[in-house]
């Protein structure tokens, strides 16, 4: 039987299928459908220093093969996370990656320090450098110097592995990837959502209260694949592929383009069992093809 386990930044994950930030909340709801510990890891919804209310409705809109969202990072803040939400996740023995965002480098560092205090139950921290739905949200991932600086400072604030989550809304994503590698990131996850918009032609109003939002789902998969592929050629740290993964074939495509692991996002909304089905499909595919480990196919696209 193929051993699905993988190593990222010295940590062993049971398998390369993870849940993407903001698409599984804090695990509680999905635990009704399958044991969270079956997956490689779960990445929490972005957590900020102070609670955030988020944007008013409408926050979402369905588009061809995808959707727009502008949730606005609604969350109850790091204190509530540590005192209330972490307990449930700890009980479920799921590898836990905490996704964080700050308004400044100092906020990111404070978040990293607080999470270090509970590092026995956390496998890594994912830095959301790219949420397009809060003002300034794009800055850290748009500017290579700032991105490097952010990771460098976060690096000093914790011994936990750091995953830098990149935005596709930049002219050259490889440059940003190289900058965060330089800054000391242990891995890169890509991509976050693409900035998008939709308008109601009867009322002339945007479909989202925030006017623009982030596009996700199968519509963005080709964009994400190309970005993973290009980045893989230029960096050494592992890449976690994200963007429109709906089934195991999509996941394998990402791995062939250079992703060590994948995160399943929008697919969870349509089918709460999507990640488990992807995991089983991947296991069977690797087995049938005679691979001993998923890492054997990483970057093996014959371009």
């Amino acid at each position, binding site marked *: 039987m193929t051993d699905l386990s993988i190593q990222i930044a010295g940590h062993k994950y049971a398998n390369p299928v993870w849940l993407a930030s903001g698409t599984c*909340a804090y695990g509680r709801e999905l635990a009704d459908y399958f044991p969270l510990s079956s997956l490689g890891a779960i990445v929490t919804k972005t957590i900020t220093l102070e609670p955030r209310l*988020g944007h008013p409705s409408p926050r979402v*809109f*369905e588009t061809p*093969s995808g959707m727009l969202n502008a949730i606005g990072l*609604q969350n109850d803040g790091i204190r509530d996370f540590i005192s209330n939400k972490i307990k449930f996740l700890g009980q479920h023995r799921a590898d836990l990656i905490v996704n964080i965002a700050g308004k400044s480098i100092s906020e990111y560092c404070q978040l990293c320090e607080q999470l270090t205090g509970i590092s026995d139950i956390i496998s890594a921290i994912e830095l959301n450098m790219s949420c397009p739905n809060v003002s300034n949200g794009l800055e850290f991932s748009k500017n290579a110097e700032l991105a490097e600086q952010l990771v460098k400072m976060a690096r000093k604030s914790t011994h936990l592995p750091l995953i830098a989550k990149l935005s596709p809304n930049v002219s050259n994503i490889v440059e940003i990837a190289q900058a965060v590698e330089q800054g000391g990131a242990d891995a890169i996850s890509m991509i976050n959502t693409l900035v998008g918009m939709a308008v109601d032609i009867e009322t002339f109003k945007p479909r989202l209260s925030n006017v623009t939002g982030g596009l996700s789902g199968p519509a963005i998969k080709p964009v994400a694949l190309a970005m993973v592929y290009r980045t893989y050629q230029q960096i050494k740290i592992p890449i976690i592929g994200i963007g429109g993964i709906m089934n195991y074939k999509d996941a394998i495509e990402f791995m062939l383009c250079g992703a060590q692991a994948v995160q399943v996002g*929008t697919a969870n909304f*349509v089918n709460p069992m999507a990640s488990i089905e992807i995991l089983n499909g991947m296991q069977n595919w690797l087995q049938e093809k005679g691979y001993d480990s998923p890492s054997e196919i990483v970057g093996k696209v014959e371009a």
Partner: protein
Amino acid sequence: MPAVYQLPIVSNIEVRGGAYLLTLEAPEIAHSCAPGNFIQIKINFPGNGLWRRPFSILDTDRNNIRVLYKTLGRGTAALAEFKAGGVLNIIGPLGNCFSNPDNDTTVLLIGGGIGIPPLYYLTKRLTESGFPRQSIHFFNGASDYDSLTYLEETSELGINVYAVTEDGSMGIKGVVTDGARQFLSGVDNSIDPPKKRIFACGPAQMLKAVSKLAAQFNVKGEIAMEALMPCGFGICMGCVIKVADPCSSCHYSFKRVCQDGPIFNASDIIWD
């Protein structure tokens, strides 16, 4: 506990008011659901839509659940094409449910448009459990006689049913809250003090009017809200409404219609 099911379609037929009645064989859901709960149906339709579509449970019997729906857009139009013998992928039961009124309460159900199903289910459960039928008053509103949904079926439950039409083609002329207001104004509040409850479901504007009415007559109201729902089981935060929240620094917060609702206390909702 909700789960994903492949459910056989027992029937899917057009009924009065331009609505369709879908019967699904779903013993697990039929045994565990309650009035107010809904299901998410995966419908493949032209245009590559991803999301499931949410529908309230209309009622149940030993093995089946039923859904009453109107064709509004692409998904519901495609749903109407399904035939008996087919299969649908659904998630359910989802959401919270209406609370049970005490037996000595006067109950007002106020429904418009596609808001009738959860109210019908609640009424049916109440009458089956021995709740006095004469104390149940069901206001069924629509633009005109032809658009009234599930009117006869509701009357068959042996309760007081009031049709309310905007053009006056049947029953009371006006919007459905006008009918409820007339009723509440006619009740002598001194002899029959506050033991009244309102349950409502329908378009947002109607529910807003119901909330006002409930506040005006000092009646506790529970309303079933609607929202666009990418997931339906609480993981996306996409379906929120604004509700009063004493714990929040600005005295409100955004709650998920799918998981914290769809039933909310009328007085908690902040209508902008």
